[in-house]
């Protein structure tokens, strides 16, 4: 009974929050409802008994949206509405609606066909984290390692892009040097 009520509370709030994310013209509303919607989605994992995935959803998306916020803070005035440019609202509405319909059909087809089955059902007596770990390091080992390498590449690239002048202190007085780059010299 409680799960039933909880499911509908989470479902309705998730839908409304993500609709605000899409519809709102204010950065602050959009970002806040995105973060709140992500938290609400983790509620579904908790209802299904997948505590570990629920918590991972919470931690990962809370951090990710926080990083998005810092960009929003740099680029927009958070207290004002943004003027959006709509060239062809009818086309956007049609394409968006069709996409949504296709997704609903794709995801509801197996439920209607009643051939949905858990490949790795929850085993009694084995914790959530252990169960995820066993599947990750046996069945999905290669995708897991590929994802790890991809993240490593992204991290190294990020450090190289950001850290070109890391040896110079930002707070001490920097002596103005003549630019060594040829393009910078010419532009002066």
């Amino acid at each position: 009974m409680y799960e039933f009520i909880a499911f509908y509370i989470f479902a309705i709030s998730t839908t409304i929050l993500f609709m605000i994310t899409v519809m709102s013209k204010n950065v602050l509303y959009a970002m806040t409802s995105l973060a709140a919607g992500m938290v609400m989605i983790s509620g579904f994992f908790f209802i299904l008994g997948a505590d570990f995935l629920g918590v991972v959803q919470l931690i990962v998306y809370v951090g990710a949206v926080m990083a998005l916020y810092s960009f929003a803070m740099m680029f927009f005035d958070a207290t004002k509405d943004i003027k959006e440019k709509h060239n062809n609202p009818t086309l956007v509405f049609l394409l968006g609606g069709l996409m949504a319909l296709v997704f609903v059909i794709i995801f509801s087809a197996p439920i209607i066909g009643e051939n949905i089955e858990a490949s790795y059902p929850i085993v009694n007596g084995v914790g959530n984290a252990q169960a995820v770990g066993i599947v990750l390091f046996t069945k999905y080992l290669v995708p897991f390692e590929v994802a790890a390498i991809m993240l490593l590449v992204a991290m190294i690239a990020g450090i190289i892009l950001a850290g070109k002048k890391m040896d110079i202190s930002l707070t001490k007085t920097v002596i103005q040097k003549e630019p060594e780059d040829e393009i910078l010299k010419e532009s002066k």
Partner: protein
Amino acid sequence: MDATILPEVTAVGVIIKAVLILAVISAIAGFGTYIERKVLAFMQRRLGPQHVGPYGLLQLAADGIKLFTKEDIIPQHANKIIFSVAPAITAATAFIALAAVPVFPDFTIPFVDVFVPSIASDVNVGILFVLGMMAAGLYGPLLAGMAQSNKWGIIGSARTAIQFLSYEVVTGLSLLAPIMMVGSLSFVDFNDYQSDGTWLVVYQPVAFVLFLIAGYAETNRTPFDLLEHEAEIVSGYVTEYSGMRWGMFFIGEYANMITIGVIASVVFLGGYNDWWIFAGWFMILAKIAFSFFFMLWVRAAWPHVRPDQLMWLCWKVLMPLAVINVVITGLVMMAG
């Protein structure tokens, strides 16, 4: 688990527990402000509050009356909805985090026979849940700063973002080593692992120190109180707040301090096991009280750091240390 069968946890029990946590922790948070002023005063050779009531004890009530009766101001150009929601986020997430940690022992209310559990919601990934919820709590300062259309507020929320991105990695990596040793994410398992009397801090002193430093950054206590440092950015994200909205930020911060104290006590300092002649409930209270006192001590002893120093500390010093600690722990566990 041992053979004794615990009574069934009912919805009524959990609700009573939730109300209990809310009431007691709010009261402690209020009392904490008095303790903080007195302790800081003694350490800095001042007197602290002493005019209202004996030893200034009623200062607490005076502050409460002041907070409740103050005019509630919302700035003209602020985003009113977000401005009002932000304090609630801080306070609510702080108390939600407390739902998954053990506070007070189990007990049964006599006559009506309702069992009140020690942990309101015993999720088996408790430690991650608490960390995630405390991380979500930083949305309070972030939104508050951005909604109030005040330059100090914006700087405060920008500092919130960099502080979050700095300490979060260190908290996770420092707790990873003890988690590897215990092999579980549940607070109960951490407590049982240390039931032989050897505290985890003996095996993991580096992880303990790293966790404390990251924990102080998480609760924005003084060496890392960048968010609202008066000398630089007036009051940061709380510049425009008054009355009870400001009070909610305050209660959230103190509840978070208690949560960090509970995590440090259960994970590193032996949890609620009996020790010598002292019962378990006394030990856990003593440890939480000590870690609270330690935060005040640190506040009295160190000046605050600059944002760039915090980032330097977290990413260039603490994170490599935490990674080395995890690797060494893994090697020792594989060899042993």
